[in-house]
């Protein structure tokens, strides 16, 4: 068969060319972990999870195929479309669960804020690329404005989780582009003092009737519930209480796969989506949680490595920002499930059930692969 003109191996090689083996291995580990947990947490969703995974991997492959220069050329149109759609959502959007997030387009409905998670860092990376070599303070102001407009639109939907992630995505680009420490440090200090005072004076601030300027009642409630989950054990606090019980009762080695009582007796809310980490920690214990952390560290390390070696400033910034977005997802999710961050709707990256988030995240992986490939194809 080696004589044949038809080279199946060659075809396969061509097909696999855009794939970065190391990233693929790490992603495979995460998706496999997700599958393993899903069998326990929600076996009837395995089929849907498979479809989601296939679609997400296809999106990743497609993104990896496109050269990063080509991708960056899409930044401005994508960004503009994203902002227009967000405005459209505000005007014509569908209200679901108290928030206006969805937009009907023909037969399907889309969530433009999700698009912004990719479009935002792309746009800012492209912008800084244009200014390469002459980045000045006013560029950071421009970048800040580019960031504030869509974030503001998402915030009024209201969708705290997504606006947080989009803000983070934009901020990481700005940070990697070299935003002065003189600006970062005071803002960080203000943030730390702010959070610290909320924790310290939580009791007073959480009294009913106290208005938190700029935050919705349900967002205030989330923060207050975090500060004292026992205040509302059957309502909002139930999630946090039950998930910390699940994690804590898991112990070092866990109760065993498929044997989590919190999981299987339905005490855990949203156990296949945002709270799947609690399933992991209950059934596989501290060991399982550490394994997950290590996989994430590997993912981030590879992302940083690709970014550092990236050929252009824009791809560096984009790669670094995407890597940090993965981190943000992971940290915010595990932080909220273990009760150190408020409950915001952020999934555990690559593990939580849910097609949209998985596709977005895999697109991010695809972009990293594309950046890695552009380095190979354009030798220095």
């Amino acid at each position, binding site marked *: 068969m080696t004589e044949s003109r038809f080279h199946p191996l060659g075809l396969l090689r061509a097909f696999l060319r855009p794939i970065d083996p190391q990233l693929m291995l790490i992603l495979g580990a995460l998706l496999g972990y997700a599958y393993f947990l899903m069998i326990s947490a929600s076996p009837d969703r395995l089929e849907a999870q498979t479809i989601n995974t296939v679609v997400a991997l296809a999106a990743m492959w497609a993104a990896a195929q496109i050269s990063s220069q080509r991708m960056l050329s899409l930044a401005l149109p994508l960004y503009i479309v994203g902002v227009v759609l967000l405005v459209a959502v505000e005007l014509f959007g569908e209200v679901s669960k108290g928030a206006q997030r969805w937009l009907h387009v023909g037969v399907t409905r889309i969530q433009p804020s999700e698009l912004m998670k990719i479009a935002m860092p792309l746009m800012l990376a492209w912008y800084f690329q244009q200014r*390469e*070599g*002459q*980045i*000045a*303070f006013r560029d950071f102001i421009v970048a800040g404005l580019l960031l504030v407009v869509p974030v503001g639109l998402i915030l009024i939907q209201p969708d705290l989780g997504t606006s947080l992630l989009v803000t983070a995505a934009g901020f*990481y680009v700005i*940070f*990697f582009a*070299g935003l002065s420490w003189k600006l970062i440090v005071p803002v960080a200090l203000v943030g730390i003092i702010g959070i610290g005072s909320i924790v310290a004076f939580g009791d007073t601030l959480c009294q009913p009737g106290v208005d938190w300027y700029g935050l919705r009642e349900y967002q205030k409630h989330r923060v207050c519930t975090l500060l004292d989950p026992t205040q509302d054990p059957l309502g909002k606090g139930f999630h946090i209480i*039950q998930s*910390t*019980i*699940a*994690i*804590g*009762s*898991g*112990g*070092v080695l866990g109760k065993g796969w498929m044997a989590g*009582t*919190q999981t299987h*007796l*339905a*005490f855990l809310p949203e156990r296949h989506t945002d709270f799947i980490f609690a399933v992991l*920690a209950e059934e596989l*214990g*501290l060991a399982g*949680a*550490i394994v997950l*952390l290590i996989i*994430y*560290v590997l993912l*981030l*390390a590879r992302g*940083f490595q690709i*970014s*550092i070696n990236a050929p252009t*400033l824009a791809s*560096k*910034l984009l790669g*670094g920002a995407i*890597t*940090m977005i993965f*981190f943000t997802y992971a*940290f915010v999710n*595990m*932080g909220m499930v*273990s*009760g*150190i961050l408020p409950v915001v709707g952020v999934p555990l990256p690559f593990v939580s059930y849910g097609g949209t988030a998985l596709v977005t995240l895999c697109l991010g992986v695809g972009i990293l692969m594309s950046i890695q490939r552009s380095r190979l194809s354009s030798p220095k």
Partner: protein
Amino acid sequence: MTEFRTPDQESWRFRRRVVVAGLFVLVCFGLLAARFYYLQVVRHDYFHTRAEDNRIALLPVVPNRGTIADRNGVVLARNYAAYTLEITPSRAGNLDETIDRLAEVLTIEQRDRRRFRKILEESRNFESVPIRTRLSDDEVARFISQRYRFPGVEVQARLFRDYPQGATASHVVGYIGRINDRDVERIEERGETANYRGSEYIGKSGLEQSYEAELHGTTGVEQVEVNAGGRAVRRLSRTSPMAGNDLELTLDIELQKVAEAAFGNRRGAMVAIEPATGGVLALVSTPTFDPNLFVDGISTQDWKALNDSPDHPLLNRAIFSAYPPGSTFKPFMALAGLTTGKRTPGQAIADPGFFAFGGHRFMDDKVGGHGMVDLHKSIVVSCNTYYYQLANDLGIEGIARFMSPLGFGSRTGIDIPGEAEGVLPSPDWKKRRFRRPEQQRWFGGETISVGIGQGYNAYTPLQMANALAAVVNGGNVYRPHLVRHVVDNRSSAKRVVEPEPVRQLGLKPEHVAAVRTAMVDVTKAGTGARAFGNAPYSVGGKTGTAQVFSLKGAKYVEGRVSERLRDHSWFIAYAPADEPKIALAVLVENGGFGAQSAAPIARLVMDYYLLGKRPNQPAVEDVDAAESDE
């Protein structure tokens, strides 16, 4: 401020920033790892317990209640399994709507709805509340086929209390009912809260109440795994409940039936006691009621009918109603005269037909008197004058001193609740009874009335029967009891309720004999002769008539009211005369002379008890007639 940098510088800056970001990542992940360590290692025990608490619920398993049977094993109270339709309000949504839809499938009457509301209001927890009880198999099938339409509605197999004898002996057996707030308090006081977890019923009256601790049993526990919705998913362990103990009574239900039938429609009471043991053979209070009405919660109509009836069927006259003893007091007075030495059997008085005291004449029944009357004659002809004098000689203190040990004026201690003390009058009693000083003084004339069983004194039929039993058994006062054995449901071991002599009276046999001989002659030649003249066994007895003096002077009205103004009729008796096996006291409210209505009832009861002869309806006389025809 603009700085120009080479791409290389940019690259190095980016590198530094990535290092910073990497460190930030490690710090944050380190924070998470520390948090996991804290939750999963440091506080693992705490959260483990919390998870177990979440997961495991302890469900009480209600024990079967003990049964009650009479001395021959005839069942008076038992349990049977039946299906009920129950609604769990927390899961059923709109209750009225649910019930309306249920009514399309099954018959649900207004009565069921009212009871459901009532139980719902009283219910102690959020458990299911019955809307229909005693479903037929057909009804169960009909509901099951449409069950999907009714979330939170379920068919349950439950044990129900059943009183197969119906209204017979209902005052003795009593009934159970749903546990209410007052019961909960009582259970808490007894420290039995844990044992009643899951129990819905508790004894409310009669033996069901007094032997609650025996009958209830020990509640079992089922450890089950529950899900977040509180539904049991899996059983982990089970401690079986221990059924309550069974009661075997001294009561003879056939005798009870005979006695209740003998009362007919008349109101009254009868207590029959085995003199040698204090065991109660029959305890009648008429009219009776059907205790089965109370088991599921009595309907308002039924309750009204029972509670508002002028005949007061719920009242246990045998132990709670005290009546002046009338002439049935005389044998005890005679014994008091002999024992205190104030009289001897042979000592006779002249009866002019009255006894003059303090310018007032206390009259005898017989105009002109009974002539010379000794102790024997005083009982046989029921001579008042003899006892006016005797009472005066004994003095009220003397009477009280002798009567008190016989149990007059104090509770006998029978093993059902609700007993009255009665009144054994004395100057002390009068001081306690009245508030105004002028009323508190004891008058000598009042003593005279007490001597013939009128005046202040008032005793329950149970006290009369028990005092008579004590006299005829030679002076042992027993605590009367209805339960003979408590049968342990696990080992079948019988715990005997021993006859419990409360005290020995120390009566002289010749004194007792003198009184008993006279009482036998009462049934042969005296006031009881009409009822007992032809009895094939010898009986000692005494008739009595208690004036309804509370109505004295009331306007005479035709019909029912006039009947209620008539005197109460008493009869106390024991038989066989030489070796008594039964001592009884019969009271017929407004029955007129004792000889007229109370004594014939005693005859029917004794005929059955001693001869096994049933009053083949309609009456004994007819049976006699039929026999003589042959």
